[in-house]
């Protein structure tokens, strides 16, 4: 009876995988096809395969529309934010796990409550604060906002990983003569590398695609990040669909590359416990 059910179960699972793949991969493949076709071609036949691919569109997108500058801005903001948020998050997670202090639970709740609020709720007050502090329309300001928004999730993931590192390792390091910060730097952080790397990668992907804070807090063209750059292919009256698609593919490339190279490490980091 149980064995007879296995093929049915397998078929259902396979069907689910196929449906998921089509719904997530389909739109992406469609945009990839659009990126190699011109707008008039697309308007004639939206779903056609690019039989005569226009690779020159990538060169034109990069050279004619400040893509180099947007790319550099995105890299600067995202990499800086990811480095800061990863280090701060790791320290906070280690502190919350290893040093039970009065009010520990309250602090944890305050930090994690940051994950519950939708960004739309914060945007007005955030705009006002940034404006008053002279951080409006600066890349540094955006870095700060990115660090603040990604910190709760980073702490949440790292805390559960760090909690699984045996206390004995920290005690052994103490007896070996090391002080608290050295123990974090030389024991907790290296052992937590899989989780630290995973949160770094997740944060990179999320921030690289971030649009809302960037569009509200940056107005100067020379400071725009990639997602804003793509918006510029959309004119007031008509949309250059072909170029938007090309811009999107250029923007996605780094994330795609990172994910292709490190997807296995990422999954391992999310699922593995600490090494005993």
């Amino acid at each position, binding site marked *: 009876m149980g064995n007879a059910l296995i093929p049915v179960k397998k078929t259902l699972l396979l069907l689910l995988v196929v449906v998921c793949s089509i719904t997530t991969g389909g739109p992406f493949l469609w945009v990839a096809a659009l990126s190699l076709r011109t707008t008039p071609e697309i308007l004639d036949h939206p779903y056609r395969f690019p039989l005569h691919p226009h690779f020159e569109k990538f060169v034109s997108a990069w050279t004619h529309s400040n893509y180099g500058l947007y790319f550099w801005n995105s890299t600067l903001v995202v990499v800086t934010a990811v480095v800061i948020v990863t280090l701060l998050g790791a320290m906070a997670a280690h502190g919350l796990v290893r040093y039970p202090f009065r009010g520990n639970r309250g602090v944890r709740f305050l930090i994690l409550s940051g994950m519950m609020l939708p960004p739309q709720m914060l945007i007005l007050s955030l705009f006002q604060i940034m404006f008053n502090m002279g951080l409006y329309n600066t890349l540094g300001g955006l870095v700060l906002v990115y660090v603040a928004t990604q910190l709760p999730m980073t702490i949440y993931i790292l805390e559960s990983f760090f909690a699984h590192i*045996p206390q*004995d*390792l920290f*005690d*052994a*390091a*103490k*007896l*070996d*003569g*090391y*002080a608290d910060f*050295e123990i974090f730097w030389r*024991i907790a952080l*290296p*052992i937590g*590398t899989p989780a630290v790397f995973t949160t770094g990668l997740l944060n990179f992907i999320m921030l690289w695609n971030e649009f809302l804070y960037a569009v509200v807090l940056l107005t100067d063209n020379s400071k725009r990040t990639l997602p804003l750059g793509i918006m510029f292919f959309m004119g007031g009256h008509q949309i250059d669909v072909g170029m938007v698609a090309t811009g999107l593919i250029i923007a996605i490339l780094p994330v795609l590359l990172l994910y292709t190279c490190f997807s296995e490490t990422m999954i391992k980091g999310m699922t593995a416990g600490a*090494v*005993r």
Partner: protein
Amino acid sequence: MAVVKADRLCKEYKGHADLAVKDVSFTVADGEFMVLLGPSGCGKTSILRMIAGLEPITSGDLLLNGKRINDVPAKDRDIAMVFQSYALYPHMDVYSNLAFGLRRRGFPPAEIDRRVTATAAKLAMVPYLKRKPMALSGGQRQRVALGRAIVREPQVFLFDEPLSNLDAAARFTTRNELIKQQKELGTTTIYVTHDQVEAMTMGHRICILNHGELVQIGRPLEVYQSPADTFVARFLGNPQMNMLKGTVALNDGGAFLHVAGSSIELAAQALPELRKYAGSAVIVGVRPEDLYEHEPAALLERLVRIPARVIAVEPLGAETLLMLALPDSKEEIIARVGRQTGVRSGDTTTVALDTAALHLFDPATKVAIPYFRR
């Protein structure tokens, strides 16, 4: 040269009504191997962690060479500890694990290399210096953990049940290795275990703890032969000491102990202590090895034979355990006899009891009463 003195040490954990360690005092002499023995939750690991500096001391004093070290941080105590889980740094190879403590203490690289290599050679770990802990067997990891303690040449070694994660064979060899290393180095050692075999074979002295209190301290055989109370008597020895009901009778002819249907005449020197038990019950302890199936000629005059029914026979290879029911009192006892025993389950037999090897305990306080057979 290191003398560790615990003076009325107490440990209280938040949220627990009872003290985990209550007024424990002992002194470990220079070069001595002291074993803290007791069941889980008896406070032995708490004591060790207080000595290491990993737990704050609630009250009492801890002295190292006469100097109070209650408030000295763990990193400055010059004490090394081997953990039950080995606690090897998983991201470092064996060499770095051994060198980690020396690097922090600012030793020059050449000296670090000399010490690490010498320690690895001593523990036969040279071929594994470049391996990560994950690639080592349990016994090898244990040796690295020991090496990490040795390489620093600390004043005191602390061991927290270091053999409990090893299989029986590795446990035997590592135990002997530890004894050998400690003897060679002569470093003062405090060793925590719940395993009586480790305690009996390794320690110069054993400190037995129960419910956070020190029950008895002494040399292994001394404690085994003269347990301070029924807890120690049962805790040491496998199978446990048999506990029988006995009564003390005093009459004109002298003092007599009635147990298992036999009457044993007691010596005059036992009288002062036994007078208060006259006519009342006492607990009589008999170790399984003090019951004989065949009477040894040398002990004949000390033996009394008691009738028993065999409930079960457990041949262990080198010896056989007999589970016996005493018909008069319905008490059950275990006798350790030779492997060649002919008795079977259900048989009625007699076993000889060595009356010189009995132990008496107060039924209320469970504390030992001096016993002298005439």
